[in-house]
């Protein structure tokens, strides 16, 4: 998800180092969010009178541990990158390369189209069985469209 999480305009290793350090902080935050999710799931399972269904417990523990482990692994990978000038340069070139950015933009456009198509299909079929799904998915699509137009307006003024 280069376009969303890995965008950078760093021209030198020094500038990129600062961005990698910032990314390391985000990875720590991601790990903490994962641990909190895990803790909430375990707490609800063990201490809430009503408890939570096994499926939801699986969701909380799965997402929580996934986020925590991924965050920790990425944190250590970034730390290794930071310690080696060669790896730092390689990572910077890969993050700023204009061809890779163009590829990412195209992939993002394709993924967005497929996601919207998928959402519509789920809304059409799922709505027959669970009525609330129509409102939830309509809300998500509206949020997407509104944020697109707001971002478009902002970038129109900037460029």
């Amino acid at each position, binding site marked *: 998800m280069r376009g969303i999480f890995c965008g950078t305009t760093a*021209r030198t290793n020094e500038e990129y180092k600062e961005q990698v350090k910032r990314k390391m902080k985000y990875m720590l935050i991601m790990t903490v969010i994962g641990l909190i999710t895990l803790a909430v799931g375990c707490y609800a399972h063990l201490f809430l009178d009503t408890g939570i269904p096994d499926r939801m417990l699986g969701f909380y523990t799965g997402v929580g541990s996934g986020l925590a482990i991924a965050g920790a692994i990425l944190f250590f990978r970034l730390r290794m990158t930071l310690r080696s000038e060669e790896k730092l340069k390689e990572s910077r*070139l*890969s993050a*700023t*390369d*204009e*061809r*890779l950015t*163009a590829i990412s933009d195209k992939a993002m456009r394709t993924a967005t189209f497929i996601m919207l198509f998928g959402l519509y299909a789920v809304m059409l079929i799922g709505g027959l069985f669970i009525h609330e799904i129509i409102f939830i998915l309509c809300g998500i699509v509206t949020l997407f469209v509104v944020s697109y137009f707001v971002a478009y307006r902002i970038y129109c003024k900037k460029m």
Partner: protein
Amino acid sequence: MQNKIQDLRKARKVTQNELADAVSVTRQTIISLENGKYNASLILAHKIAQFFGVTIEEIFTFDLEEENL
């Protein structure tokens, strides 16, 4: 858009890696440029022209018909 990057690079005995390093892109981008699979941005075109010490027009040939203009 056609370009003479490969010709210039070979004439000056520069490797793809060296050129990629000099203009701050990956080697794969140089390969794609040479194969004509990717068109360079104005900034990259300028960097490449500067590296070889020539003008942009000497490297890149803009074909109006090919670009449907």
